[in-house]
């Protein structure tokens, strides 16, 4: 079901810009880099910001549709593209722009992976707070463009809190930047904010600067279990109102626990998993404050494995249940419980099972839904589940469908309603990418 359009006239131009070796034209090879089944007509791998600029100027002049790509971990998210003229890989943009461990800042090329960056700064006892799924593949550019985060969002804030500078080329081919390399800086418009979570629709991010943190010397995870989501979420308030200052505070539903810890005894427990950093005295204080709800403590390699599995929740769930819905919701903290109740009701009435995890102290849920084993296989029911959930969305809640069975793609919008004025967002898009070169049709407009 690929839609390959050949654009022979463009190939020599891209070869001239990037060199022959860095232009992919073989249809079979390109098919492997399809986006929701749509293969690109051509793929380029520029080596420098100037090459990216030339590519975008050309694409803009000719109204081509272009998809920027990092590690391809989130590339199947979004609405179905009609056609992809050019796929642009950032994999050669990996240079370190600045790094002084004493400043706790780093500037790095967009094509560097999160794992590479983390390993580099770990040598100096530092720590990059981004913890997306699949960090060995996820690139810095992709991380920013998709606005991804994991459990560490609770204690370290999001990208909008620790990304301090960004360089990019706009959809209309302007090479520009925002911010810089210092931790405090209000000169000029905050371009970082616009690019974080822009899904690659405003420009191609070529590098970014971040605040780093001192790596915690010791961490420990406390697992408290409850017989209902309501009780677990009440315990969350207990933690939020306490003086405790955990680095992660995660809700794990019973089905999610089964997915993440294979072979674990089946049960109906909802757990709150809290990760704390500090000395023995600090951890002892956590133990006292958390009390008897805690049934298990995890440390060392087991702890690292546990949180890594939580980070990888969406890909793990998708692998276990290939025909599933994957949903991400941002919401006010108080709405987590009503939204979970609604989710349970919608799942039950459509005969779906679901697994949910989330940063319940911040207001972020990741949910995977699949048809119950005894339910009749039905594509319509997937669409019904999404519309039922969207129909009941509370004020300030936004919900993205990250993944759905391919047959339902045409019937399920990836993004749905948002709390932010759509026309203002359109004005931003028109200012930076007036010809809609980047990720055409995949995001808001």
């Amino acid at each position: 079901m690929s839609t390959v359009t050949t654009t022979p006239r463009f190939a020599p131009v891209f070869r001239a810009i990037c060199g022959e070796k860095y232009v992919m034209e073989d249809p079979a090879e390109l098919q492997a880099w399809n986006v929701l089944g749509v293969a690109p007509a051509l793929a380029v791998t520029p080596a420098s910001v100037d090459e990216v600029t030339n590519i975008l100027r050309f694409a803009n002049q000719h109204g081509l549709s272009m998809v920027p790509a990092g590690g391809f971990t989130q590339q199947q998210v979004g609405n179905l593209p009609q056609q992809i003229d050019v796929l642009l890989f950032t994999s050669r943009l990996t240079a370190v722009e600045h790094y002084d461990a004493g400043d706790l800042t780093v500037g790095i090329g967009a094509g560097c992976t999160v794992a590479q960056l983390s390993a580099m700064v770990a040598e100096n006892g530092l720590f990059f707070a981004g913890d997306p799924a699949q960090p060995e593949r996820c690139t810095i550019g992709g991380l920013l463009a998709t606005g991804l985060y994991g459990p560490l969002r609770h204690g370290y804030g999001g990208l909008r809190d620790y990304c301090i500078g960004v360089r990019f080329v706009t959809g209309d081919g302007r090479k520009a930047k925002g911010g810089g390399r210092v931790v405090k800086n209000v000169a000029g418009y905050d371009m970082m904010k616009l690019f974080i979570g822009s899904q690659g629709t405003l420009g191609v991010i070529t590098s970014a600067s971040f605040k780093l943190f001192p790596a915690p010397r010791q961490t420990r995870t406390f697992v408290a279990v409850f017989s209902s989501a309501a009780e677990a979420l009440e315990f969350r308030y207990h933690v939020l109102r306490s003086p405790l200052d955990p680095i992660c505070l995660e809700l794990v539903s019973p089905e999610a626990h089964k997915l993440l810890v294979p072979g674990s005894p089946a049960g109906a427990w909802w757990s709150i998993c809290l990760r704390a950093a500090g000395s023995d005295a600090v951890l002892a204080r956590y133990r006292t404050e958390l009390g008897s709800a805690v049934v298990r403590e995890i440390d060392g390699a087991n702890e690292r494995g546990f949180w890594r599995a939580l980070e990888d929740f969406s890909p793990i769930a998708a692998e276990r249940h290939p025909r599933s819905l994957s949903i991400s919701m941002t919401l006010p903290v108080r709405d987590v419980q009503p939204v979970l109740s609604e989710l349970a009701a919608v799942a039950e009435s459509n005969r779906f099972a679901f697994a949910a995890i989330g940063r319940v102290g911040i207001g972020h849920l990741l949910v995977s839904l699949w048809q119950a084993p005894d339910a009749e296989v039905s594509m319509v029911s997937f669409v019904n589940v999404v519309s039922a959930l969207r129909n009941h969305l509370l004020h300030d809640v936004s919900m993205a469908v990250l993944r759905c069975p391919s047959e339902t793609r045409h019937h399920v919008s990836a993004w749905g309603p948002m709390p932010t004025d759509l026309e203002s967002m359109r004005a931003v898009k028109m200012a930076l990418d007036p010809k809609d070169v980047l990720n055409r049709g995949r995001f808001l407009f």
Partner: protein
Amino acid sequence: MLHLPVNLPGVVDHLRKIAGRDAVLDRPEDLMLYEYDAGIRKSTPGAVVFPQNTEQVSQIMRLATAESIAVVARGAGTGLSGGSIPQEGGIVIAFSRMNRILEVDVENQRAVVQPGVVNLQLSEHVSHLGLYFAPDPSSQKACTIGGNVAENSGGPHTLMHGVTVNHVTGVEVVLPSGEIVHFGGKAAESYGYDMTGFLVGSEGTVGITTAITVKLLRKPEKIATLLGVFESVDDAALTVSAITAAGITPAALEMLDGWTLRTVEAFCHAGYPLDAGAVLLIELEGLREAVEEQAIAVREVCLRQKAREVRRAKDEEERALLWKGRKMAFAALGRVTPSYYTQDGVVPRSQIPAVMRHIGNVAKKYDLIIGNIFHAGDGNLHPLILFDMRDAAQFERVLSASWEILEFCIQCGGSITGEHGVGMEKRDLMPLLFTEEDLDVMISLRNAFNGAGILNPQKIFPTPRMCREISGPTQNPVLMQEGL
């Protein structure tokens, strides 16, 4: 192109119809109060209007757009970069009558406020709930949250908690067209472009904020305030990066040099040592056990870096006194100088010793007194250059000295402003930091919302605009043919 409101009486009548008879000022003696902020520029508005609700702001914007009159929003006028200075003859929208806290949502730790709410009043209002609003500019007793949003204001505790943008999750905005729009809400983040994050710090050039949803933080269980006393600025400066390198993130880490602390001490008796070369005011907050451990670690680092002594505030009263000195510093300067000029440059933290030496050299070169009291933990300098406005030659030296300090900041990889904003004051420095194309992208965003330039003209972006930079011609024939 904006022109002066030739039919100002008609405009004033219209403003009175919108906001009420007592809600518009247009007599010269009244307007004089709105011609300046806490910086050094002045410009007299044609009218000042005090709207009481969003709908009135919308009508004022419609009027201004129809009449091509420049508009600037004003909170308390405590800004230091000229952000709230009107265009000569333009309209000032003053928010002192939109000063209500609309909602406190304890479970979500959010408050919804009107822009005229005073920063400190919000923290006081929610204090009994164990909550507070984190951004704490030195002017927090007077400055408004609307102003904080426009300038993306900071304060000493931004080292741990970030600047205003890190604490705003939603805004209601009136666009130049008069349209009322909403960005974000109570959720920490949402899908779509982060328009809230973009609006905060846009210095009133994109839209006028009429309601703000802010985060409220829980007050820490324990606070420890330490004063490290050093023989020299150099020793204190080296200690700043040593504390960071030790893996400690203080809530605040402030430096006062010897000249400044003596001036402050004479004014408010904070208990600073009069013979020190510099002091570091270090605050730690969090869980009791963690704070105690960090306090020991900080003391060790300071002593290792040749601190003469490290004091710790015994109680809240001592803590308040140490902070009083810090927060009253600018007032204290008023006693020893007719005027002073504050800069807001930022350097990477490891460059603090170098930049402090540079500032010392600049002071000597231009024969000026420059005091230093600043947010050392995040490298945000506030050199205070003393001068007398009546001495024109001296003022020229002040501007040259200031320029040299900011140039040095930029050479170190820093910025021209950490928390005060660009405003009018630093707009001509922007080309040192940003390329023509960087600025061109930002201007295209401004024009997407404020194309006619009604909102806060003459701010942020340098004038006159030079012609657009064009990168060097390519040698490649294929690319030449394509016009690349």
